[in-house]
């Protein structure tokens, strides 16, 4: 079952470890319970002349069995909690001070990414001002980052709830209109990965695709130079985009 998680190309590797730990713990409970269900069903199938035993679970020993189960579950809960809290705090609360800044603007039903580079702000979106595809794959705008440097993103929504989700990095954060949220990640393996909206946002929710492009530092510099366009520092107004007719 574990082989089915997609490759983790970021630094939040411990998260996979936590998921695996939980799977092992609950898997053992599952196997134990199923063994009891199947075992008891086979062992205690009605036989002629054999009466059931009167076991009401009310003697000290029998209540002790249930309380023992309570103690064991509590212990496993605690083991999960103590692994979870530091990891959660690292991912969600300890946002680094240094890193590449990107702005993510979500709107029905596309993304506008603004990269703060040494050549100025570089914006990528589904269409450019002339209405042509601009730095997009299959109509999906690309977010460009590099390995070796942390990326600090800030999220804004123009209309309804959206969610910024990159499976390959184990990143999810909802985007709330009227608020700005910050988060971070660090990609370690160059490549192109899915980026998606993960909060239902209207009829085009299933078209709201993006791509994460992870460059090596050299490639990233080349991309910046090639883009080279400096836009105004303020967040892009965003072109009014017709519903993506790719389908």
């Amino acid at each position, binding site marked *: 079952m574990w082989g089915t998680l997609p490759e983790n190309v970021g630094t939040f590797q411990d998260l996979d470890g936590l998921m695996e730990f939980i799977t092992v713990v609950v898997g053992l*409970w599952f196997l134990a319970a199923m063994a009891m269900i199947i075992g008891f069903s086979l062992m205690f199938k*009605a036989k002629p002349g054999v009466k059931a035993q009167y*076991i009401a679970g009310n003697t000290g020993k029998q209540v002790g069995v249930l309380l023992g*189960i309570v103690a064991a579950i509590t212990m496993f809960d605690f083991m999960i909690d103590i692994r979870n809290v530091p990891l959660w705090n690292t991912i969600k609360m300890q946002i680094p001070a240094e890193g590449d800044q990107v702005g993510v603007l979500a709107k029905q039903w596309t993304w506008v990414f603004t990269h703060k580079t040494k050549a100025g702000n570089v914006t990528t979106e589904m269409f450019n001002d002339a209405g042509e595809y601009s730095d997009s794959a299959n109509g999906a705008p690309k977010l460009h980052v590099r390995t070796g440097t942390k990326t600090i993103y800030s999220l804004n929504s123009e209309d309804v709830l959206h969610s910024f989700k990159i499976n390959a990095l184990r990143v*999810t*954060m909802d985007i709330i209109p009227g608020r700005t949220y910050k988060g971070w990640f660090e990609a370690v393996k160059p490549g192109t990965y899915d980026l998606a909206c993960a909060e239902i946002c*209207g009829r085009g929710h299933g078209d709201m*695709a993006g791509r994460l492009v992870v460059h090596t530092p050299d490639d990233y510099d080349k991309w910046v130079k090639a883009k080279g366009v400096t836009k105004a520092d303020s967040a892009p107004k965003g072109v009014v985009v017709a519903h993506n007719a790719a389908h």
Partner: protein
Amino acid sequence: MGSSHHEPTFTEKYIFPLDHKNIGLQYLLTAMFMACVGGFLAYVFRMKLAWADAPVPLVGDVDGGLYNSMVTMHGTVMIFWVAMPTLIAAFGNFLIPLMIGADDMAFPRLNRLSYQIFLLSAIILIASFFVPGGSASGAWTFYPPLNSSKIVDGVVEMHNGGVYWGGNLWILAVALEFASFLLGGINFMTTTLNLRTKGMGLFQMPMSLWMINIASLVFALSVGPLVAGAIMMLSDRMVGTGFFNPELGGDPVLFQHLFWFFGHPEVYVVLLPALGFFADIIPVFARKPFFGYRIVVYFTLFLGALSFIVWAHHQFQAGIDPRMANYFTITTIIISIPFGVMLFALILSLYGGSIRFTVPMLWAISGVAEFLVGGITGIHLGTSASDIYFHDNYFVVAHFHYTLFPATFFGAFAAITFWFPKWFGRHLNEGLGKLHWMLTVVFFNGIFIPLFITGLNGQHRRIYDYKAWDEMNTPAQHNLNVIATICLLGLLATQLVFLLNFFRSWASGPKATANPYNATTLEWAAASPPPHGNFDKVLTVYRGPHEYSVPGAKEDFSPQWIQ
């Protein structure tokens, strides 16, 4: 007690009944109809997921808007118009007076009114499919701002395109449904507390009654905030207020809190009655007492209290203060304790038994096993860091279907097949019952095991077509979706076996005696079917509900009502 009642006319019995059993029957039949509606909606979106480019037979092309509408209404219908009316309203109505030895509910007219309001809510919900713009389509959680308004040039418009009346009717229908269940719940609790026959203390009650009453109490205490939220939402939509509109200083996250403060307890409102049915059915066919009755009651009360302090685990990634997530993770994971106690108590009730694998017993045992899968996968989601990956993923869909499907359908089928002889005075066909059980188990797992895998793979829910992505659109994932859809078609077809068995046996099944299973609780003291007024004399209760194979007793069952 009711001996002087005349035989009711058709209208008195089926259209405007006061008898609790006939009101329960109205709920049951309405819920069965709504289950067909909910199943049809699942058919539409599952067909789209398996064969995105082909029109869906009977429906035609399914675009993003229609897909969202089908998903939204499927969730709404199944939770509010199938699970609740079947588990709580139908069986609560049928069982409570019979199990406590009463001739009817405390408030029969209130009972009739609660069904009529429920029926009205169902009609309004169905009507919402046919209004301009279509039915609600912003998910059953109805989050703003998608489902609320924006102000454009001074005019109130919907973020969700043309869905205006569909959404308003959705709110109205849900609000009426809540009013109905609030009335019903008050009636249930009043009846249980005041009309128990001589000798029946609270700890002599069958587990079903504990569970239905705790569920009614939890529902009554949690529903207020959501009704407030619904009124605010309606006002945002129709008048242009800005409770949830950031442009006017409102806050969309507020609605999420109001929704889930109700929404999480609501899950237990559905689960508890089903676990109660299992706990009353397993002793009958294992011929031994339910294991740890009192401990389970105490832990269920603990669970009811706990359900009010875990809600924000639905919002870990939704912009709540990340420090809050640590608190909510810890409370959420603690839920495993009371559920662990309940499940192991059910399993241990088999130990040392003399087990008869009748149809209701098969539903109960397999229901426990399936629910176990839903329970353990909840840990992945209740752990805040692990939820980062699973948020809005198919793993979530598979998880909650493994909790709600066993509760709603395994619970309902266990209850229907178990109490059918009492309710209708006739037996169901055992062979058809076993066939229905086996196929349902196979197809249910055939739908949702693949969805666990696509979830681990990374597929997001509520997406009508994965073509816009690469990693979420692999042939392997597509094949899993095809398998799930084929199993859904199988599951839907299988239910025809049940409907055939149900209606044919109702009309012409073999007649049942008063106590065909040699069971111990009070409903079996009444005739099958019980007449208006239920019992021919006032019963006295001498012992607990599950006294089977008592050492020294002549028979292997010691009924509550026989000294």
